[in-house]
Structure formats: structure tokens, C-alpha cells
């Protein structure tokens, strides 16, 4: 059985294994620095579907199938799917999995969804309730833009702190046994709201949540930054990463060169014109399921703290003058 460490961290006993991972992305991501790690790059933003929402579901479903193929398991072995996305009522995931005939739990953690699904699936496997689970998340630039910002063809300028929603989906198959890196420990995050109101500066809104979760994890486990090969945040972007470093430094925690951010890994922010970097549920999901798992396979990294970050806002609450609550969940992955 799992046991709690400190007030926030859970140490897993059975240590579920990441059997495989897959990631499918859009064209812009396919032109980025991680291109060779992706399983597929779709050039058409509609992926042959009629709407962007349907396209997102399609990418998510195809990613799940790809991950399943790579794991050597069949759909019959999977006991549960844990997935989510950014669309209202999480429809990208529910429409993606409506005919797969596997129990499904829909999650909303905004861009932190991937670590939320890994954390819950790991606990389910640890408790013996589930043998094999699918953890997945997706986002689509076009479906997110129309929900959160302006129509695509509307001519407007982005602010320098804005981030670019990643088109893509990532999925991993988590199992009770097998070959691969293991999830050994999780630190679910608290909702932290430091009063940021600018929806175009989500990195700043999420940085305090990432700070809080990382700090709690270090306190609970008694580890320090040097114990990790990498501390990987979800989509803080360039500015959010600066704020995270700053907040940690004020608490005498130096990240040194251990910190990486999925939003900065997936794009070349200078060349690709994405301001502060990538964002969206798909951002951390796809980077973890492809590039990071590859690093584990090569043995480049052995212990990774995966901290996907989410901004739990809605356009309605922002228009009402509310501030942006942030969240971050930490999942410790070890070879």
C-alpha cells in the first residue's frame, strides 16, 4: 500500500510502470526542435475532420491507439482511461473515447491534466484496483483560440507574455508490471492564486503553484535539487520559468541547470514566433510521452520530477474581473 509522507506527498509501494508513450502533433510543433521524437505530425489542422474540436478528438484517439500498439497490450487489457483537455466540458476527450468500450474518467486540470492523470492512475494501480491504465491529454491551437481568445482570422497582436497553445496529444500506458520507468512518488498540488489577472500572462499565474508543489515535494521527501536529473515543468514558458526560479531562490532553493519547461522545449521561441513558449494540455503530455520517455530509454536521465502546471481560469471569470488560480501536480518518475 502507498503511504503518505509529510502532509502532501504519497509514496507508492507497487510503483506502476510506464510501458509506452506516444505523441501526435500539428505542423508547427512538427517544425520545432523535438520533431524527430513525435510519432506523427499532422499537416492538416482539421486532420480530415469537419471541425477543430473533432480534429482534436481525432488526434487524441489516434495517439491512444499508437501508445497501445507500442505497449504490446490490447484494448482488452486496459481497465481505465484517464484523460482531459481544455475544451468546455472536456469534450475532446469524451468524444475521442466514446466508442472505445473502456471505462473512462474525465479529468480537468487545465494544462496540468497529464500529471493529474498519471497521479490518479498510479494510485489506482498501486491500490490494486486497476492493472493497466491509459493517461492522456490533448489540446488544439485552433479550438483553444476560438474558446479563449479571438477568431483565427481576426487581426490582433499578442502581448509578449502570451503563450502558444500546442496542437497535439500525448498518451502513456501505465501498468502494474513490465519494462520501463516507474512512478514512485506523487505530490498533488494545492490551488494557489497570487492575484494575477492577465490571461495573457499565464506563466506568471502558474509559477507560484509550481513553486509551492516543488517546495512541498522537497520538504516532504527531504530531497534537494541535486537528487534529480531533471525537474520538468509543464508550460510556464519563458517568463513563468523566470518567476519560478526567482520564487525558489527567495526560499534558498537553486534550480541550477536541472530545470526544463515543456513549453520551451517544444518550440524554438525565437524562430517560431510563439512569444513566451508553448502551452495547453497537449504541451506537457506530448513532451513527456515522446521526448522524455526517449531520454529514459537512452538512460540519459534516471530520476525526473514531472510538474505539469495548469491555469484554472475560464473566459467568463476573467471578464468578471477575477484572478487566475494556478495548480501544479508533481509526479516522480524513476528509471
Amino acid at each position, binding site marked *: 500500500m502507498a503511504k503518505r509522507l509529510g502532509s502532501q506527498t504519497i509514496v507508492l509501494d507497487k510503483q506502476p510502470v510506464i510501458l509506452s508513450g506516444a505523441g501526435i502533433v500539428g505542423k508547427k510543433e512538427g517544425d520545432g526542435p523535438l520533431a524527430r521524437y513525435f510519432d506523427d505530425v499532422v499537416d492538416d489542422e482539421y486532420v480530415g475532420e469537419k471541425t477543430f474540436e473533432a480534429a482534436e478528438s481525432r488526434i487524441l484517439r489516434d495517439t491512444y491507439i499508437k501508445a497501445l500498439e507500442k505497449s504490446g497490450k490490447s484494448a482488452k487489457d486496459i481497465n481505465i482511461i484517464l484523460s482531459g483537455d481544455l475544451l468546455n466540458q472536456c469534450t475532446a476527450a469524451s468524444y475521442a473515447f466514446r466508442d472505445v468500450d473502456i471505462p473512462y474518467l474525465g479529468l480537468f486540470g487545465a494544462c496540468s491534466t497529464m500529471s493529474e492523470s498519471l497521479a490518479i492512475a498510479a494510485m489506482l494501480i498501486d491500490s490494486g484496483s486497476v492493472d493497466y491504465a491509459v493517461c492522456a491529454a490533448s489540446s488544439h491551437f485552433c479550438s483553444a483560440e476560438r474558446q479563449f481568445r479571438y477568431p483565427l482570422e481576426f*487581426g490582433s497582436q499578442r502581448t*509578449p507574455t502570451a503563450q502558444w497553445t500546442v496542437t497535439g496529444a500525448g498518451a502513456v500506458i501505465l501498468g502494474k508490471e513490465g519494462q520501463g520507468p516507474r512512478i514512485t512518488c506523487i505530490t498533488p498540488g494545492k490551488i494557489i492564486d497570487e492575484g494575477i489577472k492577465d490571461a495573457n500572462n499565464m506563466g506568471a499565474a502558474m509559477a507560484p503553484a509550481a513553486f509551492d508543489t516543488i517546495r512541498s515535494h522537497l*520538504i516532504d521527501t*527531504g530531497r534537494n535539487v541535486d537528487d534529480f536529473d531533471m525537474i520538468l515543468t509543464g508550460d510556464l514558458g519563458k517568463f513563468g520559468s523566470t518567476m519560478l526560479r526567482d520564487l525558489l531562490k527567495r526560499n534558498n532553493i537553486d534550480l541550477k541547470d536541472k530545470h526544463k519547461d515543456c513549453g520551451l522545449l517544444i518550440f524554438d521561441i525565437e524562430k517560431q514566433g510563439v512569444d513566451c513558449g508553448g502551452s495547453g494540455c497537449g504541451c506537457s503530455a506530448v513532451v513527456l510521452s515522446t521526448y522524455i520517455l526517449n531520454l529514459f530509454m537512452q538512460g540519459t536521465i534516471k530520476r525526473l520530477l514531472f510538474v505539469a502546471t495548469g491555469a484554472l481560469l475560464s473566459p467568463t471569470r476573467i471578464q468578471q474581473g477575477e484572478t487566475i488560480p494556478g495548480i501544479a501536480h508533481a509526479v516522480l518518475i524513476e528509471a
Partner: protein
Amino acid sequence: MLSIRQRGVEALKRQLSKHEYQKLVDEKAPGSHYVRNIIAAFITGGAICSVGQIIMMVLKNFGADKETTASATSIIMVFIGAFLTGINIYDEIGKFGGAGASVPITGFSNSIVSPAMEFKKEGHVMGVGAKMFLIAGPVLVYGIFASVVAGLFYFIWKQVM
């Protein structure tokens, strides 16, 4: 390792420094490139208005009267804005020119055509019909309201004088 009580105290401390964090973010956040944006807006807005002026002069040359010229120029500029939106070019102009692209009448046209295109998928009534004035709606509401107020002042002014 901190006790739960100590942590509670720390959390409280952090709550109190909310304002400090906001100040820190304001200090550190990269600001917009005002000079670059102003120059780009000047060039873009100026270019759009020059096109309008050329159309106006051509129409005048063909012997159209003042009123016809004015309305025909507006109609042509609205068409150009809508056309460039339709072929996915106006958003690029907007990205470069900012207010220089959104203030002229072509920008108004872009603000109506772009949601109409985007929400076609939700049908002609609840999509195009309902969402067409998503961006231009407030401009129309307060534009018309301002004109009513201005008219009222004008009326009172005339009575007094």
C-alpha cells in the same frame, strides 16, 4: 522538515505577500515594444488610408459626385477588408500593424467577417448569425450611443445659441 503548523504559518505569510508578487511580476514582465508597434501602426494605417485616398481620387476622376465617392470608397474598402480576411491575409496585417490595421474601416470589416467564418461550423443561425458581431458588437453599441449623446449636445447647443 517543517511541522504542519509551521507550514500553515508560512502559507499565511505567502497570502500576505500576494501584493508583492503582483508587483514583482509587473516589474519583470517583458513589456510591449511600444516604439516598434507605433511605427508599424503608422505605416499600416497610413498605407490603408492611402489606398482609400487613391480609390477616392479615381472615383472623382470618373466624375462621381462627393456623396457617391464617399460611400463608394467605404464600400470598396469594406470589400477589400472582407476579401483579405477571407483569403487569410488580414490577420497577418493585424499581427504586424496592430491598431493601424484595426482602426480603419477595413479592420471593422475584418472584425465581422472573421467570426462569421469561424462560427460557420455551428450553423447559420446560432453560429454565423449569433456570433457575427462578437467583436464589432461593442463598437456598434457604443459608437451609436456616442453619436446619440453628441447629437443631443448639438441640439441643446443650437437651442441655447
